[in-house]
C-alpha cells in the first residue's frame, strides 16, 4: 500500500468527495413542487379525464355510433344510441352514455376512434371521491366535464392530430340536413 492510498483510506477520501457533491446540491434550484399549493403546468397532449363535447352552436357532437365502445381496450364505455325525427329530419344521438372511470386506462383510443371527435381528454385529474359509484360518469356528467374543460379538450384534439385548429375543422362536421337546435 502506497502512502497515498493509505491516506486515502484513513481520511475516507471517497466519502468526503461524495459529501462535497451533496453539499453543492444544497444550493441548486429545487425541482420539487409543493403540490396542493403549486400545480404542474400540464402539456396539451395530456390524457386526463374524458369529456363529451358540444359543437360551438351547442349541438351535441356524439351521434351514438358505438365505435368508442368497440375500441375501448378495457370495455368501460357503454353507449345506448337513439334517434328521433324532428320536422321530418332524422337525428341520431346517444340517449345514455357511461364511462366507468375506475376501469378506464386513459389510453385515448376512444378519442382516436370517434368519427366526429365527440370525445376529448381534458386536463382534469382531481376528481377523487369517497363514493365509488360517482366514478361511473354518465352522460350529463361527461357533457359537464366537456363544457367546463372545453379548451383543454380542444387542445388535446389538436395536439393528437385529431382535429385541425383552423376553420377546416368546422367543414368536417357531420351535419344532418337543416337540423338546428330548438
Amino acid at each position, binding site marked *: 500500500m502506497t502512502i497515498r492510498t493509505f491516506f486515502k483510506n484513513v481520511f475516507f477520501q471517497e466519502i468526503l468527495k461524495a459529501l462535497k457533491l451533496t453539499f453543492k446540491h444544497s444550493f441548486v434550484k429545487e425541482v420539487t413542487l409543493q403540490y396542493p399549493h403549486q400545480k404542474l403546468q400540464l*402539456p396539451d397532449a395530456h390524457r386526463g379525464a374524458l369529456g363529451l363535447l358540444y359543437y360551438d352552436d351547442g349541438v351535441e357532437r356524439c351521434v351514438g355510433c358505438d365505435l368508442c365502445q368497440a375500441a*375501448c381496450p378495457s370495455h368501460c364505455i357503454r353507449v345506448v344510441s337513439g334517434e328521433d325525427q324532428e320536422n321530418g329530419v332524422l337525428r341520431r344521438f346517444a340517449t345514455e352514455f357511461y364511462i366507468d372511470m375506475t376501469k378506464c386506462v386513459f389510453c385515448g383510443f376512444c378519442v382516436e376512434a370517434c368519427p366526429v371527435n365527440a370525445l376529448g381528454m381534458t386536463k382534469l385529474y382531481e376528481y377523487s371521491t369517497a363514493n365509488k359509484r360517482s366514478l361511473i360518469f354518465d352522460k350529463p356528467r361527461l357533457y359537464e366535464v366537456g363544457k367546463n374543460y372545453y379548451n383543454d379538450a380542444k387542445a388535446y384534439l389538436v395536439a393528437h392530430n385529431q382535429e385541425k385548429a383552423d376553420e377546416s375543422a368546422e367543414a368536417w362536421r357531420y351535419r344532418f340536413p337543416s337540423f338546428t337546435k330548438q
Partner: protein
Amino acid sequence: MAESQLLEEKKSLPLLRTEELLVNMGPQHPSTHGVLKVVLTLEGERIIKSEPVLGFLHRGVEKLAETITYHQFIPHTDRLDYVCAMYNNFAYVRAVEKLLALKVPDRAEYLRTIIAEVQRIIGHLFWLGSQALDIGAMTVFFYTFRERELLLDIFDDLCGARLTTSWYRIGGVERDFTPKIIDDIYKFVADFPSKIDEYDTLLVNNRIWLARTKGIAYISAEDAVSFGLSGPTLRGSGVDYDLRKVAPYGAYDKVEWKVPLGKNGDTYDRYYIRMEEMRESTKIIKQCLDQLPEGPYLAYEPKVVIPAKDRVFTDMESMIYQFRLFTNGFNAPPGDIYCGTEAHKGELGFYIVSRGGGKPYRLKIRAPSFIHLGAFDHMAKGYMIADIVTIFGTYDIVMGECDR
C-alpha cells in the same frame, strides 16, 4: 467459488447440532421490487437454497390478448413492465409488424429508436436509484429520480402520459415530435453525461458499496448462456450479445455505438455496463436526432393501419376502414412468429400465433425478468443473507412483467 468456501467453513466448525432454517422473504418485502416471495433455506447466515415463488401479480395478460384485437392490446403492454412502458409497446408492435410484414416509414423508425433509448435511460436510472437505495445509499435515488422526472415530462409532452404511454402504433407512432420535444431531448442529452459522472462519484469510490457489489451474484459466461439470461445480466459475464447489434431494428444500424461488456460477471460489472449503456444511449439519441429524416410518422396501409383523422372526415373509404379496424381489427395472416427486442432488462420477446382474423390465437410474452429469476437459486447460493437484496437488484426485476 462460493460453494467451496461454504464447504471449508463447514469443515472447520466444531460438532454442534446445526439445522437448516427456512425463511420466507416477501411478498411484502420492500426490496423485492413488487410482490415476489422467496423461500430461503439458510445455514447460519449462508443461503444454501432459494426458491422464488411467483404469481402474486398474475393478471392473465396473455389470455386477455386472445380476447381483444391486436391494436387494443397496446395499452395492456404498458402494464407489463410498468417502469419501461415504451419498450414493451415497441417490442409488441414490432412483433405484430413482423407478422403482417409491414414496412414502417423511415422517420417513424428514427422516432421509435430515440424514444426507446430515452426509455432505456429511464430504466437504468430507475434501476440505479433503487439498487443503491436497497444497499443503503439514499442520495443516488434522489439524483436519478430527478433526471428521470425530466424524461417523464418529455413523455407527458409527447404522448400525454408519463408511465402508461401507448405511443407506439402498429405501423409507426401515434404522434410526431414537436420542436419543443426535440429541444428538450437535445438539452437533456447535452447535460446528462455530467449527471452520470455525479452518480459515479457517489458510488464507485464508496468502499461500502463496492464491498457489497464486487463479487456478489457471480455467474460464469457459460452458465449465463445456459440459463438464457440476456441484457446487462448476460453482458456482465462478458458475452457479447445485444439484439440491437445482432439483429438490428429501428435505426440502430445507422448510428455509431458500442456494446459495453463486463469481465467478472458480478453485480459491479453489471452496474458498469448500465452506466456505459446510458452513455451510449445519449450518443444514439443525439445521432438519431441529427439524422432525423422528414416524412410520415405512420405508414399508409389502409387495411392495417388506423387512418389519419382528417382522412376519416373527408374520405368515405377511410371512414369504413376506421370502423372496421376498431371493431374487428385487421385480418392477420395465419402463422406464428417470434420477435425479440432488446429492452433494458434483456430480451423482451413476443410470440404470436395467428389463425387469421383480428385477434391473436395465442400470445406468449418472453419476459426477461421471468427468465432471470430462473437463475436466482444458482446465483444466490453460498452468499450471506444480507446479500440477497443485492442479488435481487442485480437483474432489475419488475414483477409486473415477470408474472404477467
